[in-house]
């Protein structure tokens, strides 16, 4: 019970983090004429945040896996 509440909190945290990172006003910081290594900064920003977000979810998956393992151990 406690475990699932904890994973819920982590999930909602990641979700809200993403909601902010992928939306206004943060992305408007990067909508300008500048470019980095020839790339428009907005593209660099969006794709790297995207990758980072996927990484976070891969970690979440590991966490969820561990948690079910420990749950099933408790039941044994």
């Amino acid at each position, binding site marked *: 019970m406690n475990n699932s509440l904890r994973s819920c909190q982590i999930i909602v945290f990641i979700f809200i983090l993403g909601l902010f990172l992928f*939306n206004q006003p943060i992305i408007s910081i990067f909508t300008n004429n500048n470019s980095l290594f020839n790339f428009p900064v907005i593209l660099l920003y969006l794709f790297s945040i995207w990758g980072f977000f996927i990484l*976070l979810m891969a970690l979440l*998956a590991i966490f969820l896996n561990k948690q079910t393992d420990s749950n099933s151990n408790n039941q044994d």
Partner: protein
Amino acid sequence: MLSNGLILVVSFIYIAILFAVARYGDKRSDEKRSIISNPYIYALSMAVYCSAWTFYGSVGKAANSGIGFLPVYLGPTLMAPLFWIILRKMIRIAKKHRITSIADFISSRYGKSILIGSTVTLIAVTGILPYIALQLKAVSSSYFILSNYPDLITSSNFKDIPFFEDTAFYITLLLALFAIVFGTRHIDATERHEGLVTAIAFESFVKLFAFLIIGFFVTYSLHDGFGDLFTKAKSLTNFDSLFSEPTIIQSGSWFGLTFLSMLAILFLPRQFQVSVVENVNEDHLKKAVWIFPLYLLIINIFVIPIALGGLLHFEGSPIDADTFVLTLPLAVGQTGIALLVFLGGLSAATGMVIVATVALSTMFSNDMLMPLILRLKFLKLNEEKDLRWLLLLIRRGTIILILLLSYFYYRVIESHYSLVSIGLISFTAVAQFAPIILGGMYWKGGTKYGALAGMLAGFLVWGFTLALPSLVPAGIVSPMLMEEGLFGISLFKPMAFLGLTGLDSITHALFWSILFNCFFYFGVSILGRPSAIEYSQAALFVDIDKYSPEFEHRAIGQGTASIDDLRTLLKRFIGSKRTERLLSYYAKKNNLDWETRPLADAGLINFVEKRLSGVIGSSSARIMVSSVVKEKKVSIDDVMKILSETQQVIAYSQELEKKSMELEKATDELKRANQKLKKMDQFKDDFIATITHELRTPLTSVRAFTEILYDNPEIDIRQRQNFLNIIIKETERLTRLINQILDIQKIESQEMDWQFSPVSLNEIIEDSIATMGKVFEDQKITLEIVNEHNYLLNGDKDKLMQVMLNLLSNAVKYCNKDESFIKISSEKRNSVIQIDIEDNGMGVHEDDQTIIFEKFRQATKIDPDKERPQGSGLGLSITRQIVEAHGGSIWVKSKPGQGAKFSFSLPFSSKLQQGERV
């Protein structure tokens, strides 16, 4: 330019491969070696989200609005972590209630209502049909481009083709065949279509592969990598507007589109089909939460480069940006790549069409047609023995109907839209399910009429603000409506509803439709009162993990029915073989005998209803079951009472479980304590036996010798001396034994009077050797002493002497009698002084190495041929207790036959100079 024949052959071969893959998936499923029971296949099948719209339309959108294509993929990415909360709950509910489609899900939640089911179906069909049409259009136009390039496409030369010459028509027919073969394989729609899912996963792989190939080709073959492309693209006239000031971000549509796609990934019928109905194991979600977004990321990496490549190449020519992925390789003469791209687009389109058609046809037949047909009395379906043919006919018929409707829709409106806009219109239609599904899953207050009102309000607003304007270019709706508003009222302009301007059309429609939807859903729900069945379904959905089946039976079914009626009913829909199997399974599980029980209980009625739900949908199942069940009218108060009772019972049983677990734990502890006590009692008995034996031996000899002396006063003086000597020795032994017992008793009861003071280690060793000196001499023992330094210890000198003496006399006792050897050494190790006493005797068996330090225990594993030295079994135990009282420890290292090394350690206090004494 490629020949028509080649393209046709390649596309039909591809579809043949698709059939083969699906066949293989079904074969594996029949062999119980499911290929789709795997998180990777699951994530790939979710990628059916990427339709031809992604494949062709993303590039088009990127060419026109830069990053504007991204929100459609960022939305699902953002939603992915919530899969574990929302999608998992949907999967659990769907499995428990044997849900077959999203319409079934909603209708089941709101009291298994036909009205709700049909409304959802209508909205879904209206919203999705154009979307399927769009896929067919993509197939058709890609075929056209491939075979006619560089002739430019205009709508006129498209319209001239009669449908029987249109490739897309034949592909549509093939897809209908595919959906029928693999989508209606089982009569029970909750059974997974494993072949279909395998094929979809395969298609997801093909479209990704094809898109990456064209991406690499444009980026690294036509240009010199990403950097080069972007540098060159700076010369484009609209480059700045693409990236530096994308209007999409400023206008609020960025958020609107992200939000819309977040809802779409959960509530599109085809997504519901692959991620809920076809889900094998909810644990697969764990991997899907990151693999699916990763897929989206990868398939989008080359969108911008291809768009820029296309813009650079075709700047100034009227080529539609939606076709860049095809026209670019064709323009540079790479027909092979173009053909591969065509196949990728075909896979993206067919995947979407197949799943969407199966999903729509299931809801169309189960939640709309079946309940209606079953109600029509004049068809006399009640007299039919077997209705399976009808069911399959309806489901297959609807597949053909939906695909043909889509095909003709595409023929009518074909060239008026870009790919993206129709997709988003469909998204907005299915977004109307969001409030009632999410509300239904987490809020018990939502009612049937609330849901109906919300959906209809949202749908009407959608129709007015999005669907109507989309029909204007086709000439179906007059453009006057757009400019002047409905009935000439300016507040009712479709694109500026109630005067709201400044938003793009999708965000505008989304905002108003969801607002009206929520307003009516919550408003009507709060004002109304749920019926009994709505209330119980609400509780079962919201608290999915709370109620066990037994409680559910009581809350739902209160009627009785005869077993025979239920059997006949089941047979009509699932055939007699499966009916008998199911009923005997139920009887076995519940220890029932149908012969002795002609009446079915609530549990069986509920069981039959669930089974039927999987076949004909929950509202039809309800109708069929209530036709044979004499139902007691259940009031909402009854349901509430039952629910609260069951909750109490659950709480009570949880408490009981907790208590019994605690009790079990306590019992275990008691058992352990009891065992320990028993063991100790056994030791005590052994001890008394040993001790009395040990005490009796000297006592017996003392008594024997004193009796001799008493009876024979004339005994010779030397003889007398000898006897008296023995008596003294024996009494000394007796005293020693009694002292040992007293010592151990004192130490254990912590009454020992310890005299701690600084003592020199060497002094202790020397004194004890001196005490034992005579013994060493008598037994000709070679003694070796290794102590380089002298150490100061804090301890009780007499007691430490006792330790040394005990260990030394032990060593003497067990020493090799022929070549006796004892070595004493002391050494500082970290913060302790370790003293070793080594002998070359018989050694101590590994099993005995800890036992010997316990009270009244002696080594048990001794070579039976050798003489067993005498001892009380107390010496080493006292030694251990003294060492431990000094804060040290004692152990033995030995191998049988190779001597023993007894070591004890004491806390180090300080080092003494040579010769210094305390």
